[in-house]
């Protein structure tokens, strides 16, 4: 499994240079059957990344550019009256054609469009005019939010942010990476070199395997204590929801699987905690810290699962 993921990473890295950790996290989110929110400035390669990923895994890719006049029916599909047959015929929307869907600048869409997309993300099915249509599997939404030029935008409400598994940020490439990128694109498009190294069926079986990764009570207890502590932290207004705890568990399982193990350790939880929870923590207005600092603080304060339950053997101090 590790080699397969390495192959995918290598293929994607042909196009996106020097962002191995972010690509890996997106892959892990894909394995965990979650969705990704990318918080970035324009032009750092979000679309390219999504295209390369879909090609390397052999998935269908669609992209939708959100503007205030994109309607819910554009993504979910709609029923149209067919004069010849006298019946309503369902026209599938963009959701049905994609395994990987890139929703660009989701904060520019109207709130009803946002909620239509997020509902589909959660339930993996679409209901139009009383009929339910399941979506393709696997299904990964990569939504982006631009942090500049936010005039006239609708920020995602907290309740909808909560539905994304992770929030990541690509960030600018460093000097060497940018040089490499420029060199690669002199006479050809490196996207063409990306070949499919992982079949869709393999990916689906990997997702099933992730679900059967062992998470012992020690780990679940750790996740619970972390989330509970986030709710009582002095700088936090709204802490991590139970859904957030569930997502930490899923992401940690996928991370363990990606590391070649079939059991979750405390280190997996710590590795994914920041990415999964940074957008789930609402700070108080007068606090001067950031969500990341609060999460680091929690990791430092909450006793790690290795230590917790130390009394089982020899009690110290």
């Amino acid at each position, binding site marked *: 499994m590790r080699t397969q993921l390495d192959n995918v990473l290598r293929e994607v890295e042909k196009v996106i240079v020097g962002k191995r950790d972010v690509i890996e996290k997106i892959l892990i989110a894909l394995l965990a059957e979650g969705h990704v929110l990318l918080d970035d400035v324009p032009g750092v390669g979000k679309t390219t990344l999504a295209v390369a990923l879909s090609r390397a895994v052999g998935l269908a890719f669609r992209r939708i550019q959100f503007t205030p006049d994109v309607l819910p029916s554009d993504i979910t599909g709609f029923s149209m009256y067919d004069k010849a047959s006298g019946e309503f015929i369902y026209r599938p929307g963009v959701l049905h054609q994609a395994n990987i869907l890139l929703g660009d600048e989701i904060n520019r869409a109207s709130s009803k469009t946002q909620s239509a997309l997020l509902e589909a993300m959660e339930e993996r099915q679409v209901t139009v005019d009383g009929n339910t249509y399941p979506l393709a599997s696997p299904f990964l939404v990569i939504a982006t939010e631009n942090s500049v030029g936010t005039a006239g935008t609708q920020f995602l409400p907290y309740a909808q942010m909560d539905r994304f598994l992770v929030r990541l940020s690509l960030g600018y490439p460093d000097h060497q990476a940018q040089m490499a990128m420029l060199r690669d694109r002199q006479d050809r498009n490196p996207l063409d070199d990306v070949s499919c190294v992982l079949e869709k069926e393999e990916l689906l079986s990997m997702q099933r395997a992730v679900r059967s990764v062992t998470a012992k009570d020690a780990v679940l207890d750790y996740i619970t204590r972390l989330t509970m502590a986030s709710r009582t932290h002095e700088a936090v207004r709204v802490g991590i929801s139970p859904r957030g705890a569930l997502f930490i568990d899923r992401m940690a399982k996928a991370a363990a699987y990606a590391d070649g193990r079939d*059991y979750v350790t405390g280190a997996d939880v710590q590795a994914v905690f920041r990415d999964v929870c940074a957008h789930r923590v609402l700070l108080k207005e007068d606090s001067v810290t950031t969500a990341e600092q609060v999460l680091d603080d929690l990791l430092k304060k909450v006793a*790690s699962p290795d230590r917790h339950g130390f009394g089982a053997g020899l009690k110290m101090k």
Partner: protein
Amino acid sequence: MRKRWIGFAVWLLLAAGLYFFENNTGTRIILLCSALFPLVPVIRGAFFGPDEKSPDMEKVRTQQTIRALTTQEEDEPGDVRPYRPGDPVRRIHWKLSAKRDQVLVRDAVPVRDNEEQDRQEDAATARRSGRLRRGLLRGLAVMMPTCLFLIFAVPAARCGGEALCNRLFAASEAVNAYAYERFPVPESQSVTAAAVLIVLLLISLAGLTVLLHSRLVTLGVMAGCTLFQVYFGLSLPTWANVLLYGVLAARMLKRPFRRESVLLYATAVLVASVLTAALLPGVDAATESASEAVRDRVSQMIGQLTGTVAELPEGEMQTRHVYTQSLQTGRREAVTEREYRLVTVEEEQISRPHWVDVLRIAFLLLLVVAVLVLPFAPFLLLNSRRKKAHAARKVFASGDVNEAVCAIFRQVIAWLEATGHGAGNLLYRDWAARLPALLPAGYPDRFSQCAMAFEQALYSDHPLGEEQRQLARGLLRETEAALWKNAGWKRRVLLKYWMCLWE
């Protein structure tokens, strides 16, 4: 608020303990005066304004801050300064901020007219006087029952205590007389043994205090003084005890008050005062005469047994006769001093309810048991720790390798922690980078391997192999050897006896 009441209860106990064996007018006056103690903060508040640190004032200040943050202020052309985190959003000067491309904030200039100021001052005065009245009432409400209790209840209890102690002393005298008769002990030997016992006790106490780094020294001194008083029947000046309590309080009550220290202090004071108050009055003039009576009675009994005295002497019979008569007529005349004493003892027995005696005897027995058991408590504690450590070590050889590896690795961690080389709340796999240089070469690598095995044992269902157990055992041996070699003698004592890591 609750802490204040605990403090008050402690003070009350102290006062009651004092009252128990200082029975003159001067002390009573001092006690009555000290009943005014709870009023001190109130009076201070009345003359010097409210206490700035009190929680009430904290609340008032918070409310003021909230009001200041939320009320809309007039659009004054006051000073403008750059935004700092924490400034209220309402105070941002949007127009100027837009013009200068920098977030600016109107500086807080509290503009208030005199009328409002006056009104606020009036309100503050009214609040203060209201608080004074409430405080006075509260103080009176506490003071009155206290004084009543001290004046009426305590002397009666004291008499009861003395009577009980007389009985106990009499009984012990009888036993002593019998014991001296049957088991004669050479003087010198018994003194040596007692001295050795006392020295042993002192040494164990001192060792314990060194081991614990605690405040037991003062406790020990106090307990020692109390026992000294009880044993020799000496009444050290009351003020010496008060001084001891004061020293205890100063050493134990760290600010801000912690609940356990207050509790510990209260318990210590309670035990000390009860011990002195319950046992001390027994050893005074009344007891001496009681023991005389017992000796008389014992010699009389011996006389009766050996047949030298055929019947009770004339005087005794008369005494009893007078006693029964006085019960019937209510008269209390006594012919001789001894007869008088007998009469009073009997009267006490009739007038006092029986269960009071039973309760006091039970309480005294409890105290005696506590005094007997307490010196051995440290050894019991150490022994239980040793047993626990042995049980933990037994797991090292258990059939379940996973469990064994976990236990061995945790022992390694315990060693590192106990010698101050632990890395706190980090996951164990991350400790390797922070291990000290004094450990042998290649140690961090072996530590990492072992941490991985530990994680596998802890988080997965895969059974580990025997070689992992050997690896963990080797690591533990290495850790023990290196850390033991580098530990000072204090640390070694700690490791061996308190942590029980070394056998």
